[in-house]
């Protein structure tokens, strides 16, 4: 921290030195015009030379320091310890680390470990000093070199701007790295899962009970990882949500864009935005607190056996959540239909609703379908509502009054809590995550293509 502050101060100093130097080289403040760039750019140029290499050294050192030190310390351990298996060795390293951070080590500490910890601390102190020396030397060297090279003809602005452009370009690649990160991390863990559970069992198995036996003779030891019931539950809940959201959202969009006056629009639009902005956890709480008991008691009143975590409650609330999404997308699509089509229909004597049903909607249909596909992808990936309102048991059923489970619920239940990181149980969550990612990605790509094609049609 001290070091970084010092570096920052040096960089600021470098800015002023560079600026002053540029003015001096030019021959005083009145004749800065002879410089290639404005004086501030020389300051920035000097500051960059002073600060950037030093910062890179600092970052690299920080990343490598722990690993290097551990390696050195392990190399100093007595040979009988080094010949232990990797897992045991990592336990010893953990002990060493505990001593270093002043935590209470587990059990007795052997003198070798104690010595190693002391060695680590000694090395760490040396490393800190070396880092400070390296950073400061690099900063001073950069400052000196840049200071000496300031000249009237130096194209400081171009060089500074090129660096900024590089930075901007680097930022824009984050999106790609995120996608790669998602794919790699999920795929890697999923592949480890498929080593213990065959892919075909996962994709076509009809049983889902994700537990692994600790002993082979345990009761109920047979874990089953068939994703079909989980997927079916997801589709059931999303289907109910779509049944709620698509008609209401579409009709609302039609009314808003074709019938509603300015006053109604200015009232309803913000309210719809509120509905869209409510966090999903609030919808989940609403579903569990109000909707599910309501459905259960009304089901009992007419003699139906309704589970308290019915798919209907989760689907219904999810549908409410998606209404504004469907309606705003359909609104866009309906507004994109050219007025000339409507005028043509009116000219032939069609009423307002006939125009909408027979001209506007067919024209907007591809776009609306794209929007609905996006909504389906959102429903499938929605987590909190189903976690709070849907169940955990995987039933292969089409009855909306029964409990079903979904992909996202299973991911959450498998990963929240204390599990070892490499049991099939936790890895199964990544396999489900992969499934979810692939399905939603497919839906999104199709939907975005459809929507884009539709937009171009009328442009």
């Amino acid at each position, binding site marked *: 921290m001290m070091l970084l502050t010092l570096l920052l101060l040096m960089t600021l100093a470098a800015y002023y030195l560079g600026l002053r130097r540029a003015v001096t080289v030019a021959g005083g403040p009145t004749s800065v015009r002879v410089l290639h760039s404005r004086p501030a750019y020389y300051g920035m140029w000097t500051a960059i030379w002073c600060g950037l290499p030093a910062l890179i050294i600092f970052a690299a050192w920080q990343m490598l320091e722990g690993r290097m030190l551990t390696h050195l310390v392990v190399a100093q351990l007595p040979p009988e310890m080094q010949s232990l298996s990797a897992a045991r060795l990592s336990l010893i390293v953990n002990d060493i680390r505990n001593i270093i951070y002043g935590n209470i080590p587990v059990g007795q500490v052997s003198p070798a470990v104690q010595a190693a910890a002391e060695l680590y601390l000694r090395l760490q102190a040396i490393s800190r000093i070396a880092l400070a020396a390296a950073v400061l030397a690099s900063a001073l060297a950069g400052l000196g070199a840049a200071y000496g090279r300031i000249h009237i003809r130096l194209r400081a602005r171009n060089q500074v701007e090129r660096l*900024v452009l590089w930075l901007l370009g680097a930022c824009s*690649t984050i999106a790609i790295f995120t996608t790669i990160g998602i794919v790699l991390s999920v795929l890697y863990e999923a592949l480890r899962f498929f080593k213990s559970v065959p892919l075909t069992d996962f994709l076509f198995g009809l049983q889902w009970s994700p537990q692994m036996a600790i002993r082979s003779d345990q009761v109920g030891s047979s874990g089953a990882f068939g994703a079909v019931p989980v997927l079916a539950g997801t589709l059931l809940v999303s289907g109910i949500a779509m049944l709620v959201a698509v008609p209401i959202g579409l*009709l609302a969009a039609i009314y808003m864009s074709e019938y509603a006056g300015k006053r109604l629009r200015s009232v309803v639009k913000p309210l719809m935005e509120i*509905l869209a*902005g409510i966090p999903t956890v609030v919808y989940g709480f609403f579903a569990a607190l109000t909707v599910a008991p309501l459905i259960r008691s009304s089901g009992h009143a007419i003699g139906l056996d309704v589970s308290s975590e019915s798919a209907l409650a989760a689907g219904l609330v999810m549908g409410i959540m998606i209404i504004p999404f469907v309606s705003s997308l359909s609104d866009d699509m309906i507004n994109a239909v050219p007025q000339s089509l409507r005028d043509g229909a009116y000219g032939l004597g069609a009423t307002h609703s006939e125009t909408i049903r027979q001209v506007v909607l067919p024209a907007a249909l591809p776009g609306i379908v794209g929007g609905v596909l996006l909504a389906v992808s959102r429903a499938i*990936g929605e987590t909190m509502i189903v976690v709070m309102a849907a169940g955990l048991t995987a039933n292969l059923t089409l009855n909306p009054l029964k409990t079903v489970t979904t992909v996202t619920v299973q991911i959450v239940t498998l990963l*929240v809590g204390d599990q070892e990181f490499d049991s099939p149980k936790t890895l199964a969550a990544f396999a489900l995550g992969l499934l979810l990612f692939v399905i939603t990605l497919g839906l999104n790509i199709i939907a975005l293509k459809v929507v884009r094609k539709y937009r171009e049609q009328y442009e």
Partner: protein
Amino acid sequence: MNNGKPKTIEIVQRSLVRRYRAERRFRRMGLGAIVLSLVFLGFLFASIVGNGYTALFQTQVQLDISFDPETFATGELANADYPRLIKEALYKAFPQVTARGERRALTGLVSSGAAFQLRQMVLADRSLIGTRRSIWLPADDDVDMLVKGHLSRQAGRLSEAQLAWIGQLQSQGKLAKHFNWTLFTAGDSREPELAGILGAVVGSFYTLLVTLALSFPLGVATAVYLEEFAPRSRWTDLIEVNINNLAAVPSIVFGLLGLAVFLGAFGMPRSAPVVGGMVLTLMTLPTIIIASRAALQAVPPSIRDAALGVGASKMQMILHHVLPLALPGMLTGTIIGMARALGETAPLLMIGMVAFIVDIPGGFTDPATVLPVQIYLWADSPERAFVERTAAATLALLAFLIVMNGLAVVLRRRFERRW
């Protein structure tokens, strides 16, 4: 000519009634859809407000505590037997209760956190020792629920004797509802009457700070690059496709990424606001990029041409002229992205921000939880008293969201320019 065949105009006029009826029906259906969705919205708010407003008040018991010097004889104020002070006061208030089991039931009426309150008071003010004070202490959550009418007398959570004592306290005016400061000044707790949202709010604050510090510069830089500098090539097309897809990837997948990469590969701490902020950054980045690009597009070419015309370089034109004009639009997009990040729960469950954390986090690497996760945790708790607290926390979350969105609207109204 007119031989029995109806004229076209007659056919039309006869069908007109039916067609107008269809027209009205269609119109009513549209209106009905809007009304229905607004009814849902109203129902949601009514249900949450109706459940939540009672949490603003907490039942308290007034006890005459005598800070007996004997209790503090050891000199260690922090470790003195504070629960005994409360017991003594209760026994004095109900002298007829003598049996051990009954006495235990009697002390059960007062929250286990009351002793901590006394401890705080004594630690803050030593001169209390040796005095007698009449102090309002939090009642147990069952008592609270009974007083608020959420718990029926027949539920069996409270015994007959306890009900009688509660009645006696009420008739003496020693049991009353006071404003629930604990809800806004405490961290999480297993006891509903001691649980508060401050820890979660502070955790949310740190997490959002990280998100803002990372996503705003990154998003604006990406938008400027793509909109102003990037050549149209395969590479930039790939970037754009990626951004659009990331905007539609389920949030829980970002949580899986955070778990596998930030926690697994980089070894960052679990439950920490830093990691939560980084995951939410990846999630909100597409929103900010898309909004920022729209803001940049809205700056008219004449500004650019004028800047270039007086000799600015392209970078100077963008940094000095285009960016300041596009900034309000970018900020609006950022605030909306932040509001979404504030309400996001699922990815944070994946990186361990669901831990039960009593302390109020003091930094970016302290274990913390956030407001929506707190709602999720409380919604899962079996105690009836947590239901109203969950609803109250939800109201707090919605209030923050409304403030943020209101800010975005104000910003848009004040700075939006029509060129």
